[in-house]
């Protein structure tokens, strides 16, 4: 029985049954032991063996076929074949060891994650050189972008309980409306698939601690109703203090970062009732964050503190009536954010509170008409926003409404190829921008089993945020109520994917290019008084991405690498060259290997030079490489399976920062232990 798993329960020694049905376990202490043998489709069996010093003990084990009923097979369309998506599975999320959403997105080609320091510090995503508020981050379809700033803080999105992450690069307003100008990051929460229980704990440099638990259960299944429930909780904390290099303008040398601690507690629960042609699910989440806001290292604040809380819930129902499938979703959320700094390095004390209450809903339907898959839907959302950081004349509510329609037609081209045509259009109104926004998009794909070529063209938009228009900080910041929405007109992108079998290796290649000029990109600039103010600028945005993913299953080896190039250049006379803090070139690579119970991974990321000054290449931040390594060991502990991970980040102690005066920490270590019972049926 090739591939069956053998565990010496008390010795934490593993073996895999070879194709000839034999397995060998060496190095046991003399005495009695229990072997547990398991294989898919067979009833696991535990047998006792006696090991004698210096002798070989033979044991024959026969497994009985298991008689069980398979659950319903659920097939979810992650994205249509015409869409250019990067999909990260639960396995990949777990294997990455990422602390939060920012930790895993940084390895996606075309995505740049900007973090303002160590673990727990705010992090944002840019796709193809976009602004962070041009990237929509969705959890089960509900936006996590702040209604105040338009930006999603990736550090506030834990990954415990996330089933899948889909990254769509390029304008996606055709489906997601406002804010999806540069792309979408869509997270899907996990449902229980049988009884499961898992726990994690860990620790690391600078006082980092972690504890997480997930428990779930399913009742019923098969052809009848199934009810499932899953609860996840995750807590992380770090002291955050680390040594950094003092910039020359403040005398050079080294100093220690202070007030950089952070703690996050997230609890998520979901329940679902699934029947043929009917699905009802509900999810609630609560996230609480407290952290120091230490400011820049030149103007450090020992007293700035931020407290954030978010409670959100969504109820989704999917019903199929005849040929039409209906989906209805209702969601609500309450957010609270407080920022206080009684003695900032410059200007007056801060004491800001922001409260957001939001409700939203959508109704959509899909059907097939003469071989054409057609979808249509409407969506509406309203936020009440009360913030002491906004000017008194700021609106205390914002709302958006949209209606969309999309179709997909698949046409066989001979026996081996298919052409997919996917037109769509969405019409939106948004209270922060005047007028109606029409976002059409047409995607074409030619696909074979080994090859896919795509091309797409469309429009997208993003309105100015409340903060852009009404932020009223007392010092060095000035809002601009006259801002226009950002528009992408006539975006064009194309890509080619090739899936090859080279010897024993599966190799996937992808290369893509885009042109996505932005009319009126909102960029904050200092004026002659060093007061920062947002303005609209036309920018020329274009570039390419390439990636390769090679897997050698026999050796448990996987090699991935990617490189992205995104030019984001001012188009006017006053300013020229790359927009500040957009690295034109980014790259990365990862090598992972698995041998029996041991896994290891080494990765490195390159971030190219970043301008810090609008319209000038002087004072640019240097390009850097940063590497990390991670090793795991899978062991049996009594009736439990344990995984131990040891990770080193910034392996070579590189002195670097994405943002000037917000340095990354140096080399740091972490250890993580994951536990689950043998009997559990975990996704991981």
């Amino acid at each position, binding site marked *: 029985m090739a591939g069956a798993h053998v565990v010496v329960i008390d010795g934490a020694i593993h073996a895999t049954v070879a194709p000839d049905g034999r397995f060998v376990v060496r190095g046991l202490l003399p005495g009695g032991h229990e072997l547990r043998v398991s294989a898919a489709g067979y009833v696991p069996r535990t047998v006792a063996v006696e090991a004698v010093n210096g002798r070989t003990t033979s044991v024959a084990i026969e497994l009985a076929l298991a008689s069980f009923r398979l659950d319903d097979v659920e097939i979810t369309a992650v994205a249509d074949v015409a869409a250019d998506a990067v999909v990260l599975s639960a396995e990949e999320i777990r294997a990455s060891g990422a602390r939060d959403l920012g930790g895993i997105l940084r390895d996606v080609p075309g995505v740049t994650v900007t973090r303002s320091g160590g673990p727990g510090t705010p992090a944002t995503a840019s796709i193809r050189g976009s602004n962070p508020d041009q990237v929509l981050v969705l959890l089960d379809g509900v936006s996590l972008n702040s209604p105040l700033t338009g930006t999603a803080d990736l550090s506030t999105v834990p990954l415990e309980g996330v089933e899948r992450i889909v990254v769509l690069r390029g304008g996606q307003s055709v489906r997601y409306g406002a804010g999806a100008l540069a792309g979408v990051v869509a997270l899907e929460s996990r449902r229980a698939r049988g009884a499961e229980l898992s726990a994690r704990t860990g620790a690391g440099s600078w006082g980092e601690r972690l504890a997480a638990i997930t428990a779930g259960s399913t009742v019923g299944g098969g052809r009848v109703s199934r009810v499932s429930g899953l609860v996840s909780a995750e807590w992380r904390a770090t002291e955050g203090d680390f040594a950094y290099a003092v910039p020359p*303008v*403040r005398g050079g040398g080294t100093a220690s970062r202070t007030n950089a601690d952070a703690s996050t507690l997230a609890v998520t629960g979901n329940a679902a009732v699934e029947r043929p042609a009917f699905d009802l699910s509900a999810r609630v989440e609560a996230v609480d964050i407290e952290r120091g806001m230490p400011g820049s290292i*030149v103007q450090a604040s020992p007293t700035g503190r931020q407290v954030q809380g978010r409670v959100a819930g969504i109820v989704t129902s999917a019903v199929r009536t005849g040929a039409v499938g209906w989906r209805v979703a209702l969601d609500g959320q309450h957010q609270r954010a407080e920022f206080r700094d009684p003695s900032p390095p410059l200007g007056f004390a801060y004491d800001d509170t922001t409260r957001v209450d939001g409700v939203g809903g959508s109704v959509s339907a899909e059907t097939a008409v003469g071989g054409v898959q057609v979808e249509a839907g409407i969506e509406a959302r309203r936020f009440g926003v009360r913030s002491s950081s906004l000017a008194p004349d700021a609106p205390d509510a914002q709302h958006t409404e949209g209606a969309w329609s999309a179709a997909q037609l698949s046409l066989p081209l001979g026996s081996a190829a298919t052409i997919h045509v996917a037109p769509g259009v969405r019409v939106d109104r948004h209270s922060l921008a005047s007028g109606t926004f029409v976002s059409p998009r047409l995607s074409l794909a030619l696909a074979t089993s080994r090859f896919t070529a795509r091309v797409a063209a469309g429009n997208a938009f993003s309105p100015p945020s409340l903060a852009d228009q009404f932020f009223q900080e007392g010092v060095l910041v000035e809002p601009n109520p006259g801002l226009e929405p950002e528009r992408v007109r006539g975006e064009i992108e194309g890509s080619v994917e090739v899936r090859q079998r080279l010897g024993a290796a599966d190799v996937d290649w992808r290369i893509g290019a885009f042109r996505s000029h932005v009319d009126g990109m909102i960029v904050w600039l*200092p004026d002659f008084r060093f007061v920062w103010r947002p303005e609209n600028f036309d920018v020329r945005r274009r570039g390419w991405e390439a990636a390769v993913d090679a897997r050698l299953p026999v050796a448990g080896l996987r090699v991935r690498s990617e490189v992205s190039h995104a030019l984001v250049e001012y188009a006017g*006379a006053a300013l020229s060259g790359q927009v500040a803090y957009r690295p034109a070139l980014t790259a990365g690579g990862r090598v992972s290997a698995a041998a029996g119970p041991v896994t290891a991974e080494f990765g490195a990321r390159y971030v190219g030079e970043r301008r810090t000054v609008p319209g*000038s290449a002087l004072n640019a931040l240097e390009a850097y490489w940063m590497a990390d390594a991670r090793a795991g060991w899978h062991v049996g502990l009594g009736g439990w399976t344990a995984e131990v991970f040891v990770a080193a980040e910034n392996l070579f102690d590189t002195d670097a920062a994405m943002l000037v005066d917000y340095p990354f920490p140096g080399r740091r270590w972490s250890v993580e232990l994951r536990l689950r019972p043998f009997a559990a049926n975990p996704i991981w």
Partner: protein
Amino acid sequence: MKTIHPLLAAALALTIVGCDDQMAGVAPERAFLDGTTDDPEIGIVVHSLERSFRMFQLGSPTTSRVVALGASSAVTPVGLSSRGKLAAVPLGNAASVAIIDVQGERIDRFFLFAGGNATGSAFVDDEMVVAANLEDDLVGLFAVDQASDEITQTVAVAPAPTAVAAVNGTAFVLSGNLDDSFAPLGDGVVTAIDPATMQALGTVETGGTNPTAMAAGPDGRLYVLNTENFVDPGSLAIIDPAGPTLVDVIAGMGVGPGHIAIDDAGLAYISGFFFGTIVWDTKTQSFVRGPDHSVCARLASGECRGAFGTATSANGDLYQLFFGSPSEDLPPWIFVYSAGTFALVDSIATGQGPAAMEIRTFE
């Protein structure tokens, strides 16, 4: 024993003679700071947004050297003073002063306040620099060759000091006299300080509010711009350093005047964002070009580009800084006006946010 062939020896000799002739005919290459053969003057511009110190030859404006002042966004320089082969650039929110070796085209050292915002500076002699700290309401003294990088010799002055001038070995510090929200507490204040003891010798009010710029005239007097409230016209205070005492206050200096430079002939060039540059004669105490007829580079619409500062060359040509306006898609420029007529004769591309300028020779 081998010998050199006579023909080869003759050829080598001719070659050497030829080289000598050529070398004798080549003038030594001019150093950048020597300027061009026609004009030894060097323009120095501090760019506040680009965070740079840029030097260019007046005789060949595209021949330039740039010193980056630092990537930190806290580097917010708006001032400049120079002496010998050194220049001092206060770095604003970085709370430090960069001393630049102009010959080496590099930053020589940084001198650090404990905190605050470093604004104006002046060399009181070849070694000593006085710098103002707007946030901490003090001025500090340091020697460019002192062992420590810390600015420890300080004296408190009236709130919001912005500019420093040195006259006959005495430092004069101009304070806006503003509260923490930058609202005037009263008229501006000039404080005279003895650098040897770092003691205040005396103070005088400027006869107006929110003064932001000061220059010493060839008559030995101090000329202070009261910027006022950016709605009503500002005024020019004339101060006798002896005392110091307020001699006179001249009204009508345009709305929001922000910079003053005085040439050797006694012409005061008063610049502002809303009008360009006013020219006022300190000798005759009259306008050469008043607010209604200011010196400016006009847009196609006929409006004046504002001016952030000026400097004059030895022949009296006026070099005027236009800060640029990204929101109006207007790039920064240095505009050049001919002496006397103030006709616009040239424009020089420059870095983002030109904020301070000097023209001088380094012979």
